[in-house]
C-alpha cells in the first residue's frame, strides 16, 4: 500500500478513526534525516498491509505537530484505536520502527 498524506483536516478520520494500527511520519522537506527516513517508511507501507502508514508535513500542519508535542523530526508515531502509543525520534532503521507496534 502507498503512504497516505494526511493533514489537519483529515487527521481524525485517517489516523484516529482508522480500523488498524497507524504509523505517522512527521517530517519536513528541509530535514535531511527525514529524507533518509522516507524510503524506510515507504518500504513499511509496502511490506506491512496490517499497518496504515501516513505522513504529515509539519510545515503545512504545525497544529498537528503541536498537538502531539512533536519537537524533533523525523518523529515516527504509532497510533492504536485513536491513541498515541509510542514514538521514535531521529532516523530509525525499519526494525526499530516496527518495534513501536510489537
Amino acid at each position, binding site marked *: 500500500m502507498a503512504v497516505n498524506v494526511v493533514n489537519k483536516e483529515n487527521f481524525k478520520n485517517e489516523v484516529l478513526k482508522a480500523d488498524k494500527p497507524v504509523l505517522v511520519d512527521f517530517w*519536513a522537506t*528541509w*530535514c*535531511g*534525516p*527525514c*529524507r*533518509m*527516513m522516507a524510503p524506510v517508511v515507504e518500504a513499511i507501507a509496502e511490506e506491512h498491509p496490517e499497518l496504515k502508514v501516513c505522513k504529515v508535513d*509539519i*510545515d503545512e500542519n504545525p497544529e498537528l*505537530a503541536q*498537538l*502531539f*508535542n*512533536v*519537537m*524533533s*523530526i523525523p*518523529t515516527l508515531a504509532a497510533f492504536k484505536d485513536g491513541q498515541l502509543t509510542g*514514538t521514535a*525520534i*531521529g*532516523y*530509525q*532503521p525499519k526494525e526499530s520502527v516496527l518495534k513501536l507496534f510489537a
Partner: protein
Amino acid sequence: MDIIIIGSGPAGVSAALYAKRAGADVTVITRGSGALAKAERIENYFGLAEPLTGAELEANGIAGAKRLGVSFIEDEVVGLAMNEDFTGLVVQTPGLACEAKAVVLTAGSTRLAPKIPGLKELEGKGVSYCAICDAFFYRQKTVAVLGEGDYALHEAEILLPHASKVMLFTNGKEPAVKIPDTIEVHKEKIIAVEAENANGMERVSGLRTEDSAVTPVQGLFVALGTAGSVDLARKIGAATDNNRIVVDGEMATNVPGLYAAGDCTGGLLQVVKAAYEGAVAGLAAAKYVRSRK
C-alpha cells in the same frame, strides 16, 4: 572535492591512504590529535620492532599520508549535511563549508552526555542534539545550548534567527570561544532539566542550576565540547545505535556516500581494528566516487 575524511587517527589516515592510492582526491579535516596520542606505549601493532608512543605512531601515519599527497586541514567540524540536490555531502567548519562526493567519519567515539537528571528522559521533548533539524519548533521560544566551544556556538547561531532568546549554558566551564552579545552566557552548573505537563505529555520547562534557581527554557540543545562522529551522523540521518554508527561490511552508513570507521563504529578500541576499517572505508568511498563520475 572527491572525499573528505574527518579525523586523523589510524582509521582516518588508513582511509586516506587507501582512497588516495585508489585514485581519489582526498582531504583530511582534523582538529589535531585524538585518542591514540594519549596511549603511552603501543607494542601490539604489526611491524613494530620496538614499542612506539601513541603520539609517534600517529605522527608517522600522518607523515606517510602527506608523502602520498593527501592534504590535511586543521579545523573543527561542527556540521554535516546533504547538499541542496542531495548529490553530495557538505562538511561545515566554523569558517568554511566544503562539499565532497563522499565523507568518511573517523573522529573517534564520543563520551556520553553528562548525567543531568531529565536530560535523557526528555530527549525529543525539548532536549535536542541537532539545531538544524529542530530549530523550526522553537520559533519565538526561549532556548538554551549546553556547551562551551565552537560547536555550541555554531548550534546557537543556527537557533538565533528562529528563537526569541538563545542562552549558552557552559555547565561550570569557561567559554572556549568568544560568544557574541546576542547570546546570554550562563556558567552555573545544571543540576536538573525541569519538565511540565502539556497535552498529557512531559516537555522541557526550565533548567535548575546549582544555586537552585530555575531558568525557564522551552528547548535545550546539547553541544558539549566538539562534535563527535556520532553527533555528526545524527545530524545527517545516519543510523546510530547506543552511541555507535551502524555500518555494513563496506563501512557504509545508510546515507549514500557516508562511511564510518574506527572507534565510532563500536567494537575493539584498537589501532589494528581502526586501520582495517579505515582501509575498507577508503576503498569503498573511492569506488563510490568513481561510480558517480
